[in-house]
């Protein structure tokens, strides 16, 4: 290798630390700068560290998690997409915990105040999150429908993906929820005081969040249909999330709608925090309850930890989206 080609080859390798979209915009000029810098200072661990950090920041920027390297509009969109994904994952893990408590309540009232408080708090937060998701989806759906009627391009595939995932999740959740004898035993369930159907649906649609994955012997005794559903349901959730995200990226939302979505995002973060507080009360003080119905296992602790991380991501995305909306308003 000649000495003249060495800086160029190293620069080429270092530029790859940055994401493709960033390279498409800055790649060539950045390569020139890097090659010149390497020729000036052949060895520099500070430069390598700086590029590693810069590459990470550029990747986080694409997900709307830091900075304002994107245009404000793209920044808000990216942040909202990340927020949507975060909320979907939060709902997955949250619903798994919540359905365990509500199904337990079908059979017996909890014997500790902590479990009662936790269930009520988590139910209120869960309900709030679902309402917020509906409120957030409404203007996006409106824009999507109006654009589809006008022959909006590149929206057919994500819409189909979203609908496919949603139908599979709904039908599968209903099928496995109805077929399971674990709900409906509570004497109040016929009055609708305990949301038996909803709990069963939540349980069935979050079957994949299970500690059984760590116990292959127990897993092997599951019916084949249930095992298939445990693998298929997360895929359908991914389809829903991916479809929704592509729709949000491609449909043109006005600044007013983006501002509205960011406001909802702030309330959603608060609802997530309330849900986690309820979950913490259950995990720390709940106890196993009668017939071990409210026992918090390792999967619940792990679920709460994941939900906590998701909340941090969602909060960060909300902050970045707020900055983007501010920049849009100033312009």
């Amino acid at each position, binding site marked *: 290798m000649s000495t003249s080609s060495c800086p160029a080859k190293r620069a080429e390798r270092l530029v790859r630390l940055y994401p493709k979209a*960033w390279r498409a915009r*800055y790649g*060539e*000029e*950045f*390569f*020139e*700068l*890097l090659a*010149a*810098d390497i020729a000036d200072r052949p060895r520099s661990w*500070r*430069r390598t560290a*700086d*590029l590693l*950090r*810069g*590459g990470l*920041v*550029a990747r986080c*920027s694409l997900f709307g998690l830091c*900075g*304002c*390297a*994107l*245009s*404000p509009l793209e*920044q808000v969109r990216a942040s909202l997409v990340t927020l949507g994904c975060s909320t979907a994952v939060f709902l997955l893990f949250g619903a798994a915990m919540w359905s365990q408590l509500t199904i337990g309540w079908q059979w017996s009232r909890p014997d500790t105040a902590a479990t009662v408080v936790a269930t009520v708090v988590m139910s209120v937060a869960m309900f709030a999150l679902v309402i917020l998701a509906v409120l957030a989806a409404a203007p996006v759906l409106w824009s999507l429908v109006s654009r589809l009627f006008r022959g909006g391009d590149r929206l057919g595939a994500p819409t189909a993906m979203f609908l496919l995932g949603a139908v599979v999740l709904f039908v599968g959740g209903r099928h496995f929820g109805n077929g399971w004898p674990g709900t409906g035993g509570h004497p109040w369930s016929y009055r609708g005081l305990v949301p038996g159907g909803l709990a069963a649906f939540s349980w069935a649609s979050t079957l994949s969040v299970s500690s059984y994955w760590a116990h292959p012997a127990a897993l092997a005794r599951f019916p084949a249909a249930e095992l298939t559903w445990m693998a298929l349901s997360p895929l359908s959730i991914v389809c829903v999330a991916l479809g929704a995200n592509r729709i949000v990226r491609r449909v043109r939302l006005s600044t007013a709608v983006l501002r509205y979505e960011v406001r909802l995002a702030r309330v959603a973060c608060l609802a997530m925090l309330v849900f986690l507080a309820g979950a913490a009360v259950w995990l720390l003080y709940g106890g196993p309850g009668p017939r071990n119905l409210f026992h918090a296992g390792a999967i619940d602790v792990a679920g709460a930890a994941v939900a906590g991380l998701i909340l941090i991501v969602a909060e960060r995305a909300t902050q970045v989206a707020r900055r983007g909306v*501010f*920049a849009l308003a*100033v*312009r």
Partner: protein
Amino acid sequence: MSHMPKQAKPVEPLASFGRYAGPATLILSSLAEGAKHGYALTKDIESFAGVRLAPGTLYEALARLEAQGLIEALESNDRRRPYRLTAVGASTLRAHLDTQRRVADLGLRRLAGNFGAA
């Protein structure tokens, strides 16, 4: 700079750039002289501030400044794309430097009052 932009209202203070406020100030100050590409910016900043901006930091700051509309990229025939200050960028830099000058003047006056002139 031959093409001096008109006065415009600053978007937001550079202080909101957080850890990029320093590099952003240096870049804008360098571009106040005229359009420059990345390597020329690095060399100019090194000469007037004694700081060599690492390539990653330089481009993070450039990307943010461009996204905020404080600088703009110019067309170029070679791979090194030059950047220039926009009208908003010039106003923002002026407002930021005015604030810094007030702080520096105040600090120097207080130093002179309590510790004597240098």
